[in-house]
């Protein structure tokens, strides 16, 4: 790799050829401000905030988009730059809805930060904000407010490069240029998976999640309602970021305390139903394998693909509707939880299901949509009444005036509050696969997976698509048909990689038996409802925390969860049994691809 030498602010440095001025400056601890730039995305160079002076040139250069060259003499801070940058920020402000006091991203907005840093005078220029901009609230998951858009196109690039959905585009030009859906139709009328990755990367409040926490407060305040909250694995390793903790801090105990103090009648754990999902899905996989390998049943589709990511589910419904047979019929842990809450839980606690309000706290934007899918009412009621994001929970904790950092730890309530390490790792990409393998292998061979500490590192990591193979040997008699089989598995995260997987399946070239697909890069810990900002480092730290939590659990395999054993004994009877089919499994629908 060839290197080049250049000067930045009087300091000579050497960098690899191809390094941008922005990255070169980072090496000497100079942080040039940016807006349209995002580490997860390709270079844009359109906001013109990151401009720097290059000796010999009258024009300023965008440091994010300009490769450093030999002999360049760069200034990152000068009157010329500050004045230009201040002008650019002023222009953005003049195009902006500056009612920050009522904005969801108030205090966490990149434009606000810059405007304050540069002491921008909002009255310097005239307002060119278009009047009467309507907020698009048509979607269950995502809200779009064009009056707050700075047209950085991060959302467009996210939906294009990371997710390959391309639901958003820049449209028109000049003073009419804006970010649009197809024909500017409402979100619920276009091909969008609700993954919310766009929301995570929006620097302002132009794209946010639909918020339902006011409804939840109302339910909590209603004495006739019994509010059950369940939290996903990913929430506990990211919630702290909203409450003063460093990225990657596990705040499980305090989180439970906080929710109890907020007034939830019961604080339960989605990890419980994650364990449940493993039992159901594990058995489903083994059943499919038997039908294919023993019965030669060609109507059974392999590879079987996980179905707990609602962004991914909507993706395959739109993009590969002929292959829905590959999806596991299992509901997601959230929805399984909801269905059981209003049947099993209600029964055991002697409650009338109609008085139960089930609230799911998720790292996810798509789960708001999932909770409202028409078919998700197998309990006889809406299985999940409200889906909240990690961000909304953080807000509620602040609203409740809780001094979070000083709270004591508490445990989840029962009877759906116990979980294993296998349940917790659902939050990381590869986690569902690992959890499933831990249990499936044990079921089939009577032994634990042959990996140290049960950690199947082959399916871990952040590469877009990972593959592994486990040999099944010395099976228990009833599973003898699997003797010697190399179980081929794959893990994909981010819808771009989901598309690659499905293109292979569609071409008949997929040699896997079981595939885990998560709609969001990083898996759920990178979900559309997680604290903002996001980048690879943040996601890596959250993933680390997930595996730490796993190791801290006394029980590491789903089928050993005593509450799981109990729910089968006393209610479901058997995996894939009649009750399971009714409450814990679902069907999918074909949607338009374009």
């Amino acid at each position, binding site marked *: 790799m060839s290197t080049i030498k250049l000067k930045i602010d009087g300091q000579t440095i050497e960098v690899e050829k191809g390094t941008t001025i922005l990255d070169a400056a980072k090496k000497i601890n100079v942080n040039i401000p940016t807006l349209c730039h995002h580490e997860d995305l390709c270079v844009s160079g*359109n906001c013109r905030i990151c401009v720097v002076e290059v000796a010999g040139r009258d024009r300023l250069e965008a440091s994010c988009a300009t490769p450093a060259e030999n002999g360049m003499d760069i200034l990152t801070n000068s009157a010329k730059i500050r004045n230009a940058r201040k002008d*650019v920020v002023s222009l953005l402000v003049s195009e902006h809805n500056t009612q920050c006091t009522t904005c969801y991203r108030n205090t966490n907005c990149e434009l606000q930060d810059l405007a304050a840093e540069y002491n921008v005078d909002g009255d310097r220029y*005239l307002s060119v904000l278009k009047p009467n901009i309507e907020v698009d609230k048509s979607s269950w998951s995502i809200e779009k407010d064009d009056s707050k858009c700075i047209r950085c196109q991060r959302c467009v690039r996210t939906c294009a490069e990371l997710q390959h959905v391309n639901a958003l585009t820049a449209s028109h030009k000049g003073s009419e240029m804006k970010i649009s859906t197809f024909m500017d139709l409402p979100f619920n009328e276009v091909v969008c998976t609700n993954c919310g990755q766009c929301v995570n990367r929006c620097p302002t409040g132009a794209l946010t999640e639909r918020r339902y926490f006011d409804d939840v407060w109302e339910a909590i305040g209603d004495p006739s309602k019994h509010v059950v909250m369940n939290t996903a694995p990913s929430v506990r390793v990211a919630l702290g970021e909203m409450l003063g903790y460093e990225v990657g801090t596990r705040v499980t105990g305090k989180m439970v305390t906080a929710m109890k103090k907020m007034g939830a009648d019961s604080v339960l754990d989605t990890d419980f139903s994650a364990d449940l999902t493993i039992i159901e899905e594990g058995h489903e996989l083994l059943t499919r394998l038997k039908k294919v390998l023993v019965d030669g049943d060609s109507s059974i589709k392999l590879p079987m693909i996980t179905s707990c990511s609602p962004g991914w589910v909507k993706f395959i419904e739109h993009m590969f509707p002929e292959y829905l047979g590959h999806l596991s019929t299992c509901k997601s842990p959230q929805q399984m939880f909801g269905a059981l809450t209003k049947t099993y839980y209600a029964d055991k606690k002697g409650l009338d299901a109609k008085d139960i309000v089930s609230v799911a706290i998720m790292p996810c934007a798509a789960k708001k949509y999932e909770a409202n899918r028409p078919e998700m009412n197998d309990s006889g009621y809406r299985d999940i009444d409200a889906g909240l994001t990690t961000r909304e929970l953080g807000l509620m904790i602040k609203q409740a005036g809780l001094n979070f950092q000083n709270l004591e730890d508490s445990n989840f309530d029962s009877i759906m509050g116990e979980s294993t390490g296998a349940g917790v790792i659902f939050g990381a990409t590869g986690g569902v696969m690992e959890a499933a393998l831990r249990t499936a292998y044990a079921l089939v061979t009577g032994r634990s997976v042959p990996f140290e500490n049960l950690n199947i590192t082959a399916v871990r990591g952040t590469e877009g698509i990972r593959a592994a193979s486990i040999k099944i040997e010395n099976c228990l008699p009833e599973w003898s048909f699997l003797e010697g089989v190399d179980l081929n598995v794959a893990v994909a995260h981010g819808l771009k990689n989901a598309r690659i997987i499905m293109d292979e399946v569609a071409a008949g070239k997929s040699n896997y038996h079981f595939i885990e697909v998560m709609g969001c890069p990083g898996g759920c810990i990178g979900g559309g409802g997680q604290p903002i900002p996001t980048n690879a480092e943040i996601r890596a730290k959250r993933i680390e925390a997930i595996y730490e939590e796993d190791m801290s659990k006394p029980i590491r395999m789903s089928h050993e969860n005593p509450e799981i054993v109990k729910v089968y004994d006393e209610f479901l009877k058997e995996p894939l049994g009649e009750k399971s089919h009714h409450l814990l499994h679902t069907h999918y629908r074909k949607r338009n691809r374009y």
Partner: protein
Amino acid sequence: MSNTKLKKADIIFSSYSVAPYEILKLTMNKDKTEVINEILDSGLRGRGGAGFPTGLKWKFMASEQGEEKYIICNADEGEPGTFKDRKLLVEVPRKVISGMAIAAWTTNSKLGIIYLRAEYNYLIPALKKEIEVFDEYAEKFGLDFKVEIFSGAGAYVCGEETALIESMEGKRGEPRNKPPFPINSGYLGKPTLVNNVETFASVSMVCRYGSEKYKSYGTDDQHGSKLFSLSGDSPKEGVHELELGMKISDFVEEFGDGDTKAVQIGGVAGFCIPRKDFDKTIIGEGNTTGGATMIFNSTRSMYNVLHNYLEFFAEESCGQCTPCRVGTQQLLKGIEAVKAGDKPESYLDDLVKLSKTMKITSKCGLGQSVTNSFASIVKNYKEEMLY
């Protein structure tokens, strides 16, 4: 007109009787590098407005490796006041295509595309006929070079070479970051040479007359002849081929209507020269070389003129970069506000400063050029901005 130092030239529209594509044939008998050096030596600069030395561009292009290389003729002539390329394509398409063919031969490129603006769709039938003639001769000469026409779809910004390429790739005409430059990574990521219609026609003439003769026209700084599209308050509207280096005062004497108040050189992206500076300003020095010249007499309101320009920019900006997208709107709204008395006179100074910020921060030439006319009109016609 006597006593004028304005020099007409007769290079591009010079007529002579030769077999079709004779210039191409003769050029192909030379050494490729020699031909490029001759063009370099002639000092020919891009005639679209940016003025980059043509020979240098071709040199870079020739050194690019690879089978897939493209020659693009930028016929997106969208600069208000410019129509010389239209005339060239109607009257001397052969010279244009010859220039493209010479480019293709010297740089080993196999495909040429004429990017023709949508507004010139009516030129397509005749152009296609000429391309058919060319195909015959190319085959005769053993030149593996095909020419196609790609229609624009109505976007001034697609005159910028990377926006043009984006448009050909089926995308929005949003200019790219440079580097990489089209020569290294252009259409479909391949080496691409983009030159203006007049540049290609000029190349044919350089190859015909030789660089020495070509250099004898113009000044030390700007060689050769240039086509000027003239419109407005002038009895001689049309395309004029002139040597570069004349003073505006000479120009006005020849082409004005006797009551010339201002001359816009270089289209709306160029400069507006007031009467008092006619004598001091030389065309081709410190201003653009696109050649669009509009003459305004004393009946014209410069406020109207500027307002017209700004409406144009605000509409045609591609919209991706902040300074241009918002700045053009600010300048437009700003002069309206000052005129209406909603903003004080001093606000005009703020706007001029803003236009200068746009010059140094905009991503492409569109946003970078707005200050040219904005500052010159506001400065020189302040009264008209206020009353």
